[in-house]
């Protein structure tokens, strides 16, 4: 099952959303999340929070900040480099 997930990552041909991957593998989304967590723990996948940084702590905030509180656009899983 885990190998199948990694194979899908390599052969997907583009980004997938979690639900679409669960449907392809014919597993529940919650079960797939557990499998992805296992793969992340083993270092076979990376888990990344995507969005912009919270600028409130930045020293140059007054000259740059528009998105001062940061923006969260969700979480992605990807194959590590190399």
């Amino acid at each position, binding site marked *: 099952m885990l190998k199948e997930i990694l194979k899908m990552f390599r052969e997907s*041909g583009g980004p997938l959303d979690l639900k679409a991957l669960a449907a392809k593998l014919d597993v529940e989304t919650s079960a797939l999340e557990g499998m992805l967590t296992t793969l992340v723990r083993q270092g076979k996948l990376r888990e990344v929070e995507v969005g912009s940084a919270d600028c409130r702590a930045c020293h140059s905030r007054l000259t*740059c900040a*528009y998105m*001062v509180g940061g*923006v969260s656009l969700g979480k992605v899983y990807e194959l590590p480099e190399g």
Partner: protein
Amino acid sequence: MQGEEIIRVRDQSLAHLRRVHGDDAETLIADARYGFISGLMKEVMTKPAVARVTATDRIDSFVLNRWLGIPLFLLILYGVFQFTFTVSAPLIDLIDSGLGWLAERVVTVSPAWLGSLLSDGIIGGVGAVLAFIPVIFLLYIALSILEDTGYLARAAFVMDRLMHKIGLHGRSFVSLILGFGCSVPAIMSARTIENPSDRLVTIMVTPLMSCGARLPVYALLAGAFFTANRGLVVFGMYAIGVVLAILLAWFFRKRLVPGESGHFVMELPPYRLPTVASVAAHVWERGWAFLSRAGTIIFVVVLAIWALDYFNVLQHIGQAIAPIFAPAGFGQWQPAVALVFGILAKETVVGAFGTLFAGAEGTGGFAAVLGGQLGWTPLIAFAFMTMILLYTPCVAAIGTIKKETGSWKWTLFTVAYTFALGWVVATLIYQIGRLFI
């Protein structure tokens, strides 16, 4: 002795598993466990004949649709600008009238230089920027609603698919969409892209996105020259930025930093109804940042512009630079000066116009003075807006590019290529447009 034997047998077993199955024991055990659970669930669970479809699923069937996703994103973006400009127009006029009334009162203050500083410098310059507060706040209301509902994440995902199809790292678009707010945090967000080539390309094209600081410039010129279609024209600026960022990213990936891009799986948040408190908090936070800039960097820059203009220095500087922009139609010293100061912060272009054309009240006033005094037409205004969109990023963004790439070579390359791109595109628009208009 027995312990060593156990370790030897363990190592032999691990080597055997790796040889036969091509993986380590931990993965094989986890794989077998999940395989067993999955098989067991299929045997003991009876799924309903019709799968439960949530509201999120129903909306996603349109929003994430392969064919509808991108047109829907563009339609929503267009709707955002129509909403922003339709609602803000009367408010801007109201603020403009108030500032005009105030400028008339202070212009008589003596000594004369103080009257000029207050009316032309502070009210004309900083006031011209502050007049666009309604546009900024309304845009942030719209973006905050899109963010809080969970749509912004989906917009990034839909565009990611397009990016990937043309050989780019899908996640680049996350940074680009964040660039609608400010280039600085958007450039910083590329840190999470592991592949150095993908990261570099994302950083180099992010400044092409229309940040919030460019919006007052668009609002001023679109209001002055495209009154009936200002929402459409500003939407066009954002669309040009997106298209050029994707094309340039593709070109850089092929020519400058070639390599393979990886795939990913995104966990999209469920749709939520935004709360008034959450949207208000976001809008206030971002709006306050705009006001802070108006009171600090824009204030200082506008004072510098006023002082240089008051002592007749600015015109000489502008006249030396202006011929560069003549092929693009705006070869006069005032827009040249505005472009130079715009590198400090893009909103200062409006502040510069406000100071240099003191007395021009509201967008109608600017249309009269830019059209009458400089001979600007809607075509020249559009070419100038394109230059504002594409040319050299602001100093804060340049500093961030240097910090994130750790390279002066790529930083200076970005500064140079964006300027050249802005100049070429503005010149093409003006020269080709002249043939038809």
